C-alpha cells in the first residue's frame, strides 16, 4: 500500500467524521426552530426558555455553537447530561464498551455460521439443503430485530426458561452469568446478519465458481477441495470484508433495539433514554460516537481489503 493511498484514506475519514459531526449537531441543535422549546416542552414559561437559551448558547450564531461543541468534543469534553448532571463523555464511552462487546460477539457468531452456510449453499447449489437454507435466510432477512427478540424471549426465556429474559451482568464480574444474559441479545442481533451475509457469500462464491479461471483450475486436474479452498474462496471471501463492514451499520441499529428490549446498559440504550428525556448533549454525543464507530469500522475494512487485494489501484 503506497503512502499516497494511506494519506488519501486518512483525509477521507477526517472529512467523513467532520460531515458526521455537522449532521448530528445540525439536526439536533440547529434545525429545530427552537431547541429550547424542544427541550423544555410546549408549556415552558418564556423566562425558563430564555434561561435555557442563554445556558445552551443558543443565541450565538450557528457556526459558533457548532465550534464550541466541536472544540469541546475534540478535547474530550462532551458536555453535561441534562438528565443526570454528570459529564456525558465517560458515561457514553463506558456504554460504548458494552455495546462493542455485544457487537463483536455478534460478528464472531455471524462469521462462524454465515461462512459455512454460504459456502455450503454455493457448493450444493440447487440441492434440497441449499434451497432450505435459502428460504430460511430469506425469512431471516425479513424479520425485524424486535420481532425475533420478542419471539426468542417468548420461547427460550418465558416458556422453556433456559435463559434470562433481560438484564445485564458484566463479564468481568461473573463470566458464566454474564454470558447467559448475552446469549439472547447476541443471537437476536445476529440473525439478520447471518441471513444477509450467508446469502452474499453464497452469491459471490457461485459467481466465482463460474469463472474461467476456476474452470481452468478444474481442467488442470486439481481435486475439487483444492479448487474450492485454494482457488475459489480467496476470491469470494475478499468482497465479504466489505459486506461485513457495511453490515456493521445494520448491526449498530440492531444494537439499539436489542439493548432496549433486553435492558442492556449499552450505547443504544443510552441513546434511547436520551431521546426520550430530551437530553441534548447525550443525544449528540451518543449519535456522534456511534456514527464514528461505523465510519472507523469501514475505514479499517478498506485498509484490510486494500492490503489483501493486490489489484486495488493505489490512490
Amino acid at each position, binding site marked *: 500500500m503506497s503512502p499516497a493511498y494511506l494519506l488519501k484514506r486518512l483525509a477521507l475519514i477526517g472529512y467523513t467524521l467532520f460531515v458526521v459531526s455537522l449532521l448530528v449537531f445540525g439536526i439536533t441543535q440547529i434545525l429545530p426552530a427552537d431547541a429550547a422549546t424542544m427541550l423544555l416542552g410546549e408549556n415552558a414559561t418564556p423566562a425558563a426558555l430564555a434561561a435555557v437559551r442563554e445556558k445552551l448558547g443558543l443565541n450565538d450564531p450557528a457556526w459558533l455553537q457548532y465550534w464550541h461543541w466541536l472544540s469541546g468534543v475534540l478535547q474530550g469534553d462532551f458536555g453535561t447530561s441534562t438528565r443526570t448532571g454528570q459529564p456525558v463523555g465517560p458515561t457514553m464511552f463506558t456504554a460504548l464498551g458494552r455495546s462493542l462487546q455485544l457487537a463483536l460477539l455478534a460478528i464472531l457468531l455471524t462469521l462462524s455460521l454465515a461462512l459455512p452456510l454460504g459456502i455450503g449453499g454455493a457448493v450444493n447449489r440447487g440441492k434440497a439443503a441449499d434451497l432450505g437454507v435459502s428460504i430460511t435466510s430469506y425469512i431471516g432477512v425479513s424479520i425485524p430485530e424486535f420481532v425475533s427478540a420478542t419471539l426468542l424471549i417468548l420461547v427460550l426465556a418465558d416458556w422453556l426458561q433456559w435463559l434470562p429474559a433481560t438484564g445485564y451482568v458484566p463479564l468481568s464480574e461473573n463470566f458464566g452469568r454474564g454470558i447467559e444474559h448475552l446469549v439472547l441479545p447476541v443471537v437476536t442481533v445476529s440473525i439478520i446478519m447471518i441471513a444477509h451475509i450467508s446469502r452474499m457469500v453464497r452469491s459471490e462464491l457461485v459467481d466465482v465458481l463460474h469463472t474461467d479461471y476456476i474452470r481452468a483450475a478444474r481442467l488442470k486436474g486439481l481435486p475439487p477441495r*483444492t479448487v474450492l479452498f485454494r482457488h475459489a474462496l480467496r*476470491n469470494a471471501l475478499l468482497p465479504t470484508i466489505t459486506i461485513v463492514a457495511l453490515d456493521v451499520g445494520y448491526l449498530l441499529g440492531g444494537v439499539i433495539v436489542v439493548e432496549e428490549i433486553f435492558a442492556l446498559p449499552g450505547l443504544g440504550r443510552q441513546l434511547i433514554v436520551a431521546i426520550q428525556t430530551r437530553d441534548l448533549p447525550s443525544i449528540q454525543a451518543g449519535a456522534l460516537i456511534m456514527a464514528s464507530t461505523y465510519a472507523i469500522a469501514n475505514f479499517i475494512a478498506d485498509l484490510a481489503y486494500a492490503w489483501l487485494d493486490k*489489484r486495488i489501484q493505489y490512490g
Partner: protein
Amino acid sequence: MSILSVDDYSLDYAVPAGLRRALDGVSLHIDRGEVLGLVGESGSGKTSLAWAIMRYLPESAKESGRIALGSQPLTGATPGEIAAIRGKRIGMVFQDPGTSLNPTLTLGAQLSEVLVLHRGLAKKEAETEGEALLARVGLRNPAAMMRRYPHEASGGEKQRVVIATAFACQPELILFDEPTTALDVITARQILDLFAELQEETHVASLYISHDLAVVSAIANRVAVIHRGHIVETGPIGDVFARPRDSYTKMLLEAVPRPGHRIVATQPDAQSAPLLAADRIGVTYGRKSFVSSLLGRAQERFAGNREVSLTIRPGEILGIVGESGSGKSTLAKALTGLNPFTGEIRFGGRAIANLRAMDEAYRRDVQIIFQNPDSSLNPRQRVREILSRPLALYGETKGGKTRDVIAGLLEQVRLPAEFADRFPHQLSGGEKQRVAIARAFASNPKLVICDEITSSLDVSVQAAVIALLVELQRIHGTSYLFITHDLNLVRQIAHRIAVMYRGALVELIDVSRLPEGAVNGYTRELLAAVPAPLSARA
C-alpha cells in the same frame, strides 16, 4: 494408434424447448506429433467438442458415440479416471489469459501446483522446474515472473505461462482454444512461433481450435471444418485450402480477407481538395490528482493521441491500423466530438477547433459506427426509433413519411422492413451491425467512421458486412475512415493506410505500395507478424 479418436460422436443439450443438437456424428483423429486445426464460426460446436473431450459437460448434456485417448475410452470414464487424465495426459490452453488465470494467486503458484500434483515433485523442486519451464517458453527473468500476479504481467507473458503450464506435465494431447484471439497481432505471432517450436520438440498431439483460417493454415498439418455441429470437410491443410470440396468450406475461404484480392474498385479523385484534414490532433486522459499535487509529484497524464495529422479525400477509404492502445479509437472519438482534443480539424473548408464548433452540419456529414453492436443500440428502443433519430435531427425525410424512409433505410442494408418493430436483442450480431450502418447512412453523410465494426463478427458475417459497405460507397461516394487491427482486411478495401502506434501516426502509405514500400520499423514488424494469407486462390 491415434492419440485422440472421436468416433461418430453426437452431443445434445437439454433446453426448455427440447433437445438442442450441438454436435452431430463427429469423427476425427489426431496422431502423435500432428496438429489438427478445427475451424468453425460461432455456434459451430467447436468449443463443445473441446469440453466433450475434457469431459467438462453440464448435466443437461446427452451424448452418444465414442471419444478415446489412445486405448482409454473417455466417454463413460469414471470421475476417478477423468481426474487422473486432466492436466496430466490432456492439457488445455484457453483463449483469454486475462480470465483463465486466478487473479489472487501468483503465476508461479499456478504453475507449480500442476507439477506437484501430476509429477509428484516437492514444492521446492516444483518451483525450480517451474522457473526452467518459464525460461523455455521465452520469458525473461523467470524467477521474478514466478512471483508476479497476473495483473502484473502482459497478455503475451500470461499466455506463455499458460502454455508452460499445459506442457509442464508432458501430456499426450493438448487442446488449444483460440489461444491468440485475445492478443495483439505481434504478440500472437510470437505465441504461434512458440507453439510451433514446442510442438515439434515434444511431438504432442494438438487440437487447435480457431475461427481464423489464416492462423490455422500457418500451424496445422490437417484441418477439419465444422459447421453447425457437422464436420463438413477434413484433410491435409494444403489440399483443403487449395481444393475445397464442400460449399461451406468454399464460402469460408472466400470470406477470409486476402490482401491480394481487392474488393474496392473505385478510386478517389486525386485532384480534389481534402474532405477532412486533421491537423496535429492531440488527446490526453487523466485528471490531476489532488493528492499528487500536494505531494509535489509529477502529474500522470496519459496521451491518447500525439499530434496526429492526416487528410481524407472525397470518396476515399482511409484505413487506420494499430494495436489496442494505439489511439485509433481515441482519434475517431475526437473527430466526432466524443473526446476533447487539441489541434484543429478542417472539414469542407471550415475550421473546427473544438467540440462546440461541431454544429449540425458537421455532425450530419460525419457519422460514426461502433464496434460492439450490443452496446451501440439502445436495448430499450425498437429499430424504428433508433433509425428515426437521425431523420428527426437532420430532417432527411425528403417529404416522404418517416415509416417509408425507414423501410428504405432497412432495404438499403438488406434487412426486411418488419425489423423496424424489433428490439436489438431480437437481432443477430450481423443484423444489429447493419442497423447501425443504416443509422449512420440515414443522414447521407460525406464521411463515415467505422471503428472496428466487424471485429466482433464471424468471418462470413464480416464478409457480408464489408460487401455492404463497399456497395454503399459505390452508390453514394462516401468516404470512410476504416479502423481495424486486421491488416489483411484493410488492404482489401482501403486506398491509403495509416499505421498508429502508441498514440502517434507512424506511417501513411498508399495501399498499392505495400508491403515492400513500408518505411517505418513498426509497420514492417506488423506486416511480418500477420499470418500469411492462404495460398489458395487468387
